[in-house]
């Protein structure tokens, strides 16, 4: 009875704190500007199925894709067992589903065990890719400090979780074969779990009943505590991608990548300038008109969702021509800085009773420098690479727009190009009347 109460308190507390933190992230994301991304639900759903659920873009790099697939499938399927664990905990049962599911139960838990072994291998491989093989995109200096620690903590957490599963199942197998398990004995002498029916006797075969019960309970409680701990770690970590990948892909850009947004606010001004009879629509006085973005709140909610979805894999940066040739631009860092600033703005709002108090900082300049922005060739390699359809380029473009249209801070050569275009209708200094001269050259 006491264990049921402890379990329910732990579970309720863990879930509540998680939803509290998620609601804060949701609030932060909704600080962004409106983005019209609710059209074409069928196409969006299909994209989500292929890219997020089906991991399509991951398979451009087969080795990490397969390792990641082990962890991903294990994570998804284990949720079934988690339902049983939660119900067992709340009702004081043990292996609640076993009597009713029978052979299917054995199959399901065995399947989860096999996936857990694969996930274990995957996790070890990922740890060695980061710490021993030092895959370039995973050891770049931009990851020093928290990002690196975060990545390793996630992987160690996964290993611990898998160990608890096998402690629980292994000890239970030995107990069951001795007829001492809490699980309903179905007279077959083994739970029949593919891995644990071998691993259990091997590891725990010589132990007393008392020790086995303790190990089984440590496994069970350790598992559920790790799950709740992990759940609450997510909102503080890049690992939040396991949840946000799905909505982020659903709301991804379905247009051609070369198509950049035309700013409506600019269209109205240009139309008014070219056609005196044009009356621009009355602007909402509550929305400050700012061309481009200086602060995270000038970006769209989708761009902010992108920043929380990024799991810092660095495929974007490893494909970026500017980064490859030693420039300071890193698309991954653009996403990380956007999230860092957004977190800072969120904390500021929390600390000041729901109102943002000017802290004299902004995303542009204090986090992302013009040198980074001007290194971009707008080639879309970063957008193409991202397995969860994050668009770093759109943030770079919006920040450039602010630099140019609000601060007149374009590089000198670009200002000359603008002048040429205004005066001659070409980016170079040629007379428009010479445009057809090539015909006679």
């Amino acid at each position, binding site marked *: 009875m006491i264990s049921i109460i402890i379990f329910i308190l732990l579970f309720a507390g863990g879930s509540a704190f998680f939803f509290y933190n998620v609601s804060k992230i949701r609030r932060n994301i909704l600080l962004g500007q409106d983005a019209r991304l609710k059209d074409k639900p069928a196409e969006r759903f299909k994209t989500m199925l292929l890219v997020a659920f089906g991991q399509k873009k991951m398979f451009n790099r087969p080795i990490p894709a397969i390792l990641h697939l082990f962890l991903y499938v294990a994570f998804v399927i284990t949720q079934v067992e988690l339902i049983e664990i939660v119900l067992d905990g709340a009702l004081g049962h043990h292996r609640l589903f076993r009597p009713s599911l029978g052979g299917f139960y054995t199959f399901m838990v065995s399947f989860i065990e096999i996936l857990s072994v694969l996930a274990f291998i995957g996790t070890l491989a990922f740890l060695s890719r980061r710490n021993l093989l030092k895959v370039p995109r995973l050891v770049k200096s931009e990851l020093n400090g928290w990002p690196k620690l975060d990545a390793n903590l996630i992987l160690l957490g996964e290993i611990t979780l898998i160990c608890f599963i096998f402690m629980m199942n292994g000890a239970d197998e030995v107990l069951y074969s001795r007829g001492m398990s809490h699980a309903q004995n179905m007279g077959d002498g083994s739970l029949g779990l593919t891995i644990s029916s071998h691993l259990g006797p091997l590891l725990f075969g010589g132990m007393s009943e008392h020790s086995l019960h303790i190990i089984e309970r440590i496994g069970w409680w350790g598992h559920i505590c790790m799950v709740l701990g992990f759940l609450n770690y997510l909102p503080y970590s890049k690992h939040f991608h396991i949840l946000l990948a799905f909505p982020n892909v659903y709301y991804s850009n379905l*247009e*051609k*990548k*070369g*198509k*950049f947004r*035309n*700013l409506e606010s*600019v*269209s109205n*001004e*240009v*139309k008014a*300038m070219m056609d005196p009879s044009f009356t621009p629509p009355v602007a909402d006085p509550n929305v400050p008109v700012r*061309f*481009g973005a200086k602060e995270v709140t000038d970006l769209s909610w989708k761009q902010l969702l992108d920043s929380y979805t990024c799991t810092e894999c660095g495929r974007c940066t490893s494909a970026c*021509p*500017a980064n*490859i*040739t*030693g*420039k*300071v*631009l890193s698309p991954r860092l653009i996403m990380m800085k956007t999230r860092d600033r957004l977190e800072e703005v969120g904390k500021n709002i929390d600390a000041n009773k729901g109102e943002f108090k000017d802290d004299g900082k902004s995303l542009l300049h204090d986090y992302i420098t013009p*040198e980074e922005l*001007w*290194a*971009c*060739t*707008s*080639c*879309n*390699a970063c957008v*193409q690479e991202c397995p969860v359809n994050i668009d770093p380029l759109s943030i770079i*473009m919006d920040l450039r*727009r*602010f*630099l*140019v*249209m609000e601060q007149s801070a*374009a*590089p000198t*050569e*670009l200002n*000359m*190009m*603008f002048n040429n*275009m*205004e005066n001659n*209708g*070409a*980016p*170079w200094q*040629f007379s428009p009347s010479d*445009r*057809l001269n*090539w*015909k*006679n*050259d």
Partner: protein
Amino acid sequence: MSELSVKTMADYMASGETPEILFWVGCAGSFDDRAKKITKAIVKILNHANVKFAVLGTEESCTGDPAKRAGNEFLFQMQAMANITVLNGYEVKKIVTGCPHCFNTIKNEYPSLGGNYEVVHHTQLLQDLLNTGRIKIEGGSFKGKKITFHDPCYLGRGNDIYEAPRSVMVNLDAELAEMKRSRQNGLCCGAGGAQMFKEAEKGNKEVNIERTEEALALNPDVIAVGCPFCNTMMTDGVKHFNKEQTVKVLDVAELIAQAKDL
């Protein structure tokens, strides 16, 4: 050189005729000495295939692409709206461009400003002319030569067009070698996003050198391109490695025109 047969929209209008297609030449194609050769190659092919085409001539103006990518949305939209007024005035329906940047801008960014046209890149038009038999290539000077194609970002990733230039080059009877980074994974030449008009930011290498190195590793006879800016960047890269005697940088249109000895 003899004068090419090129009529403007104004010429067609005066004679009461309508062309099949408008050839949008672009600023590089109009003013840059190297790119002008690509323009002429396209014109020769169009004339050879008896395509009734027109150019805007002095009525053409920059699409605004470099201004937009550099963040100057005002200037972009001013250019766009002025061009749309001219194009709509001539009731233009179909446009072929000699540059992926013009192509992308007119195709994708003009519609919401009032400019709706069917827009194709010149490699798509060439593919169409070959498929419909309006031009034919048998053998030609590139037979047996090794050619590698550099995907322009705004044709490839920007608009998912990877096969048109390749299917055109198949007709040359040449060996088509692919760089490791090609199609979706193609590496930029370094000129996009208005970089063409400024010095690169500080780094340890130029992007065009990185890309040219990759192309030269295949020992090609020709590096084929589909964009006047890529052409400049790759030509500079080849010169950097002192290979201009053995490796040519040519637009797909030039390959076709030379193969047909036009």
